[in-house]
């Protein structure tokens, strides 16, 4: 295009000028890179250097290559949002990665020259993202679930000035919290149960014209994307209504683990054995009647209550919940106080294995001890109801002997939380922990399934410690116990955070900006449909379910659901998917730009495709700390290993590279790939490259995939050195000179 103007700048600061011939490198940009305007500068990130670049941009430069430090450094100085920008990493990637010796000088120079060739080639193929044409209009927040998490989400969204649509399956708002007599305190003095506050939240929501409440209602279908979701709500009358939605908070809570699955603990055998919800019911009835809580079997006086912790939880038999629900210890303490506060003469015993009351729960626990609640470390084996009394048999873990409590009037089983997270999109036949076959909650019309993907034990949590609101369905944020077992205080905090993320997703979709982790990215995948073979790989492999299929199984991209990882680009066998500033061509051109010495040079070339979040920074930091590596590698950062298209590998090998190293994040159960399955997909795809290598008569060692971490500052240079030795052993590629 005639109006494009390319400029390249070679910095000689930070020792670059002393270690390499910057003038030669600049000449390469001009001659081989075919860049019209090439400048050298001794200190490019200085105000003077930056002003120079700005001036050139002002005079029409639209594409700028900067050959200086790593793209991770000096980002503020080299921030030119109006141009396409490529960075050649001559500092961390070249001079700091190499020893300062005479014998290293030549190969170090070659490295620098190649990185400049690569930046120029990349620049030629890059476009400044024009901005996503698919922008949202709606910023209304859909809250699914009217329990304390959903109510909190609705109230907080309103306080921030956003309209809310709230859908509740039950006839009444309030969820579990409305069934409680009181709740565990979240403020000092943490001494006694307090009011739940749920009435006030319901009032705030129902009296606010900015919240449209649908009770006895479910989502019949959810379609669209952030900023333009369309929720079809099935309402009580049997009719359905459509609401335009910007983003969604799913606060569908939990079901209590069904105590009837615990007959050995007396459940179902006597009305005097209840779960925690049953005890709340008794407490509310007692309050209504003005009487103390009485024995369900005959209305008799309650003199002794036993609380059985971890009933059907932390189970190792595989029959019940393997996890801990976290809130139940405090709940049992609260319920023991219901009795002690009314009548200190009632015996209350909590039988537990580990009492788990983190934070200020410790004060609450202490308060219970002062009130005379007895805590016994033990594991309950069985509960035997006999008439109006129950015998609780347990292993006393302190005395290491079997023990029993006889004559309990009431036994409360602390069963746990089972997430109401909808269907398991990976296993349609899966039942939940209660043995029920879940029905879909969101009824998404997405290609990849109707509900949020689940993480573990049926909860729809994020996998990331640093990013609890990382969602695999952009614009839909789980909050409260649907996400992870939790108590009221955490659920309310969680719901508040989730609303922020929902608001953020809706607002950014209007600006065409990506959601986390490439926040603000304006690029988006573009597909050339006339070349598409409808193979469906992109629609199946997208980690975020962003791509649907039309009736002819062509991909339908929903840009504002996309997180810009490029997994679709890596998946596409006919290479019709690309981003304007990151494409099959921008990387392919870099690969081809590298100068490949001939077979007899003893200078192999190894292509390194490195994840930009972990492997690339690790290489930078390794060099910063003086850990050197082979001058034969040429490193290209990729958005995610999932974005690596196998054409890059075959192009590299056909072009005479001697080996390819792919460096991505850990995959498997504890995966660390922030695009969920990018590194796993890449590994799988590369396992198939062996066939290609064989047809090319190349050794399988010529392509290697590694799981690396950002802390591998010593290991990464070592991996490179080791790989260079492998190449040395198998010899130079026979493909040189044919490209």
């Amino acid at each position, binding site marked *: 295009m005639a109006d494009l103007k390319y400029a390249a700048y070679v910095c000689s*600061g930070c020792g670059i000028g002393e270690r390499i011939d910057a003038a030669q490198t600049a000449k390469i940009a001009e001659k081989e890179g075919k860049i019209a305007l090439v400048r050298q500068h001794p*200190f490019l990130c*200085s105000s003077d250097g930056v002003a120079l670049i700005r001036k050139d941009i002002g005079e029409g430069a639209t594409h700028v290559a900067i050959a200086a*430090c790593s793209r991770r*450094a*000096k*980002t503020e100085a080299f921030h030119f949002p109006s141009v396409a920008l490529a960075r050649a990493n001559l500092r961390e990637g070249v001079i700091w990665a190499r020893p300062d010796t005479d014998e290293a000088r030549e190969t170090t120079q070659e490295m620098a020259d190649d990185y400049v060739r690569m930046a120029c080639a990349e620049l030629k193929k890059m476009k400044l993202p024009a901005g996503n044409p698919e922008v949202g209009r709606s910023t209304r927040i859909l809250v699914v679930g009217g329990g304390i998490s959903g109510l909190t989400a609705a109230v*907080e969204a309103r*306080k*921030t*000035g956003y*309209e809310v649509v709230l859908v509740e399956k039950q006839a009444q708002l309030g969820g579990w919290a409305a069934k409680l007599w009181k709740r565990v305190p979240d403020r000092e003095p943490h001494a006694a149960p307090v009011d739940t506050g749920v009435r006030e939240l319901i009032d705030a929501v129902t009296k606010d014209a*900015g919240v449209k409440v649908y009770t006895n209602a479910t989502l019949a279908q959810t379609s669209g994307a952030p900023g333009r979701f369309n929720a079809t709500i099935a309402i009580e009358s049997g009719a359905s209504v459509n609401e335009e939605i910007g983003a969604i908070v799913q606060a569908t809570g939990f079901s209590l683990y069904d105590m009837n699955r615990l007959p050995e603990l007396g459940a179902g055998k006597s009305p005097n054995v209840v779960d925690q919800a049953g005890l709340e019911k008794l407490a509310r009835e007692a309050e209504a009647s003005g009487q103390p809580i009485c024995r369900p079997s005959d209305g008799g006086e309650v003199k002794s209550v036993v609380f059985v912790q971890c009933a059907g939880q932390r189970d*190792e038999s595989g029959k019940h919940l*393997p*996890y*801990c*629900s*976290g809130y139940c210890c405090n709940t049992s303490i609260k319920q023991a106080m219901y009795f002690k506060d009314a009548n200190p003469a009632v015996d209350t015993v909590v039988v537990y294995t*580990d*009492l*788990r009351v*983190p*934070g*200020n729960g*410790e*004060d609450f626990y*202490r308060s219970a001890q002062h009130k005379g609640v007895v805590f016994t*470390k033990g594991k309950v084996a069985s509960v035997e109801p006999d008439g109006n009394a129950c015998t609780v048999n347990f292993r006393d873990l*302190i005395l*290491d002997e079997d023990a029993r409590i006889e004559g309990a009037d009431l036994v409360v089983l602390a069963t746990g939380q089972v997430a109401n997270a909808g269907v398991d999109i990976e296993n349609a036949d899966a039942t939940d922990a209660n043995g029920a076959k879940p029905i879909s909650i969101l009824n998404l019309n997405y290609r990849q399934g109707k509900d949020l993907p689940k993480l573990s034990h049926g909860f729809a*949590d994020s*996998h990331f*410690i*640093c*990013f*609890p*609101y990382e969602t695999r369905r952009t614009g839909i944020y789980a909050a409260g116990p649907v996400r992870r*077992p939790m108590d009221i205080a*955490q659920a309310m*905090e*969680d719901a508040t*955070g989730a609303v922020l*993320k929902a*608001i*953020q997703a809706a*607002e*950014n979709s209007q600006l065409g900006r990506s959601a*986390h*982790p490439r*926040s*603000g990215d304006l690029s988006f995948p573009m597909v050339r449909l006339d070349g598409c073979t409808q193979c469906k790989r992109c629609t199946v492999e997208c980690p975020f379910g962003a791509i649907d299929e039309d009736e002819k199984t062509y991909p339908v991209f929903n840009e504002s659901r996309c997180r810009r990882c490029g997994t679709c680009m890596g998946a596409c066998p006919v290479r019709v998917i690309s981003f304007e500033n990151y494409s099959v061509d921008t990387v392919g051109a870099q690969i081809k730009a590298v100068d490949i010495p001939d077979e007899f040079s003893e200078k192999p070339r190894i292509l390194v495709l490195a994840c930009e979040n*972990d492997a690339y920074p690790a290489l930078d*930091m390794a060099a*910063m700390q003086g850990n050197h590596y082979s001058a034969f590698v040429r490193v290209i950062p990729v958005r995610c290993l999932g974005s690596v298209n196998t054409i890059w590998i075959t192009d590299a090998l056909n072009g005479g590279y001697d080996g390819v190293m792919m460096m991505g*994040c850990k995959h498997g159960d*504890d995966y*660390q790939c922030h695009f969920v399955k990018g590194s796993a997909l890449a590994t799988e795809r590369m396992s198939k490259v062996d066939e290609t290598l064989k047809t090319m008569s190349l050794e399988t060692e010529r392509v290697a995939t590694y799981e690396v971490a*950002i*802390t591998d500052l010593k290991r990464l240079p070592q991996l490179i050195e080791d790989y260079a030795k492998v190449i040395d052993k198998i010899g130079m590629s026979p493909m040189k000179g044919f490209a």
Partner: protein
Amino acid sequence: MTEVVATSQTIVVVGGGISGMTAALEAAECGRQVLLIEKTPALGGRTALLYRYFPKLCHPTCGLEINLRRLKSSRNLRVLTMAEVTKITGARGDYSVSLKLSPRYVNENCTACGACSEAVEAAIDNPYNYGLSKMKAAYLPHAMAYPQRYVLDPSIVGTPEGEKAKAACKYGAIDLGMKQETLEIKAGAVIWATGWQPYDAAKIQPYGYDRYPNVITSLEFERLADPHGPTGGKITRPSDGREAKDIAFIQCAGSRDENHLRHCSRICCMASLKQTQYVREAYGEEGKSTVYYIDIRAIDRFEDFYRKVLADKTVRFVKSKPARIAEDRKTLDPVIHGVDTEGYHRYASRHDLVVLAVGMEPAVKGADIPHEIVADSSGFIESAASGGFFGAGCASNALDVNRSVQSATASALRAIQVVRKSDRVEA
């Protein structure tokens, strides 16, 4: 002079650890103007000093890299390091915040080339390794430090060492005449994400942290395991540098104790379980971990991790709060004395190294903050619904990283609710 544009629409976030960075980024990515204030020379806070996170055993620096990239690409967020809040006046929606900016003696010309550090010989205790190692007095705080700019320790300013640094810099980045500055800025809301500090282990006298070299804190142990740490990731004894293969972890060191911290610090059980796996990583079957505990608080799906550690033959659990630690004078081995409450047996157990799982207390007590603020009796900040001050992360409660980030995200929304007034018409 440092110039900062801030208005009553600006959200000020105090503290640049993971909570503060999260609160600042989330608000900025909602289109809000944010000023992030950090006391030390670099962002990252305490999580940057952890080797791995539980339960995935992933690396905190991975998330830090993502957050730094978000931060570098955000035009709504401004960062001030070496800055502290000294005074706040005004009310919700209209505060005046006074800041004290300490001199870094290095200006924005710094390219982080490292020439000053090479030139300087003076060394100081490395706070990023809790003083377990030394570093040059001209330093980059750590490999991922943001801003990526060196710092001169004040101790060398005005000495020949300072002049050496200045002479070594080709870019005019060393400014030995830099003075402390004060700055007045406007803010609509303030988020306190001032984090936590370890409870002073020396106060738990029977454990002898101040007397025995081979009794260390859980935070120091993180540094020992970290390849960036003082031993390059080797788990060794401070007394003699010998490999520490038999390690005791004492839970509730300062927590759940009316003489020290009343609250449970929440993270320590999981942190110790995680650290037993560092021992396994380093020494395999030869490593030996013993966890002395009251209750193992591995809530929700952390239970999976607890079970994995329970199945690990190199890890032993003793239900006991140890009474005291003695030291073998000859070998300097710590010997733990106590009673195992599962069966009431007395024990005297010798280990190579004892790690105290120290409790978490707020780094800044609510009462110390220069404005009226609501804090509980432990100093954790409570967000007052009517005010424009919000606690986030461990400044507000004893939280793990995941919950700190939730808390920080929620506090960002609360701050937005304060500053949004003028620009969005209620529907």
